[in-house]
């Protein structure tokens, strides 16, 4: 990567992280408190009475909630910040008048989404280890899945922020697409409990692949398709990033 490109990507990333850290108290409420509520109510409350296969529900659910944290942190912050920068503050215009390329701006936002997701997931893992005594197993491999999944959802955030016309549409999209995706991609219930016709579609979503792969890691189940799973998420991420970049150029450069 050229020095100038790296410098621009890091400049965009730094600005987004500065905003994130300055408003951490606001983000923390939504992004850490919400998953903890799920854990307390469904996992530690209801979950003590439920067993899936021979697995305790809390142990089953923890990887799903972890990826809910990754998805929320990457998708929601990037889509909101980009939509505001495009439609409201119009700071994307200012950024593009600097000697930068659209690719560099988009990559900066995606990188910020990934790091924000990593921070939130790290906090979640530590909290869960202390509160619920959950062991996540091979942390570096889990972090790799988190990075790739967060990159996918940050890129998806670029797509929606450039494709949709306003914040209202974005709220509807989140409610109709992202929230169900989080609920049905193996987070709270096994995919096999879903209707047969829906299962192939759910299986194709990178979030499902990541949740199932990480669940196998945390439950110490051998996964013969581990590298294929990683490769699949990478391919999906690169594809959705390219779509996001295309839409970014089409929306901002007339």
């Amino acid at each position: 990567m050229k020095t100038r490109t790296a410098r621009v990507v890091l400049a965009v990333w730094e600005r987004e992280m500065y905003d994130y850290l300055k408003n951490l108290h606001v983000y923390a409420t939504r992004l850490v408190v919400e998953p903890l509520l799920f854990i307390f109510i469904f996992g530690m409350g209801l979950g003590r009475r439920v067993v899936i296969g021979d697995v305790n529900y809390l142990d089953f659910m923890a990887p799903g909630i972890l990826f809910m944290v990754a998805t929320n942190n990457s998708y929601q912050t990037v889509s909101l910040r980009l939509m505001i920068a495009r439609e409201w503050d119009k700071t994307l215009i200012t950024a593009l008048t600097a000697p930068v390329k659209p690719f560099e701006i988009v990559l900066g936002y995606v990188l910020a989404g990934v790091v924000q997701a990593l921070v939130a997931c790290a906090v979640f893992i530590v909290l869960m280890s202390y509160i619920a005594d959950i062991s996540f197993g091979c942390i570096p491999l889990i972090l790799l899945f988190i990075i790739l999944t967060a990159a996918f959802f940050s890129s998806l955030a670029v797509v929606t922020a450039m494709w949709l016309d306003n914040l209202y549409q974005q709220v509807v999209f989140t409610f109709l697409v992202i929230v169900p995706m989080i609920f049905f991609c193996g987070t709270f219930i096994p995919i096999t409990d879903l209707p047969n016709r829906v299962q192939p579609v759910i299986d194709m979503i990178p979030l499902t692949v990541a949740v199932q792969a990480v669940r196998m890691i945390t439950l110490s189940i051998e996964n013969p398709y581990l590298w294929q799973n990683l490769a699949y998420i990478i391919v999906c991420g690169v594809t959705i990033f390219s779509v996001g970049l295309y839409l970014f150029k089409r929306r901002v450069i007339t």
Partner: protein
Amino acid sequence: MIEVENLVKKFGDMTAVDGISFKVGRGEIFGFLGPNGAGKTTTINVLVGLSRPSSGTARIAGYDVTKDPIRCKERLGIATQDANFDRHLSIRDDLFYNGLLHGIPRRELKKRVDSALKWSKLEKYRNKRFYKLSGGMQRRLVVARAMLSDPEILLLDEPTTGLDLQSRMQVWESIKNLKKSGKTVLLTTHYIEEADVLCDRIAIIDHGRIVTSGTPDELKRMLDGNIAIEVTLNPEAMNEEIESDLNRISGVNLVEIKSNRIKIGVNDDTIVEDVLKSLFTKARVSEIDIIRPTLDDVILHLTGREIR
């Protein structure tokens, strides 16, 4: 520094810029004067890479804006029409992060941000968000941000629109200082007086076409034949002989008498003296007004309607 040739920009069926050509030399302030929707901002957007030209070429310091946008933008600073700042950041932070995008080293950037705030007289508002500032302060901040990277060329898109007189004068002073420091400036405006006071050369643009261009004086001279002399005479001195004497002067194209006031139209500046001499020999003159064409008159003459 800026060369534009046969530039066309279409949005679907609508032609925003219709084959314009112009050049701006180093250290020059070039004004784009025209009504709203004339194509001024679209041209600026093409120069900064926010709009792709449908046809034609635009070059910045010899580099093609479509083939080499980074090299072009390295030489440009733009003050956009809107005050587009990040509402979550203080103005100091916004300038800082904008400077980072321009690749200014951090230590140097901190100094430049301080200078920009000083230049725009906003030092004491450094920790405020932009929307807490008045319109005039916001405009000055936009110009200051454009200068942060110390660019060779500044594109100022309607820098004083919506400002009160005092703020407008401050921005004008800033633009004059830019010229003194050797910057090349492309200024768009729909304020005729602004173009007249600030620009070395002006292009009048309407419906995406350059109607004419030249120095403010050259443009005004386009209507040289329309100098009017209005004279008030001592009432007893009025007689028919004065009217016939004036009509005999070559170059006088109008003599209109209302009570003791005479309006004389002449073709040329040199005839003004002959007219006045003729009047002074015949009567006591109590008041003289010489009315020369303004840029407003030129625009009305060229576009056929008041600027919108």
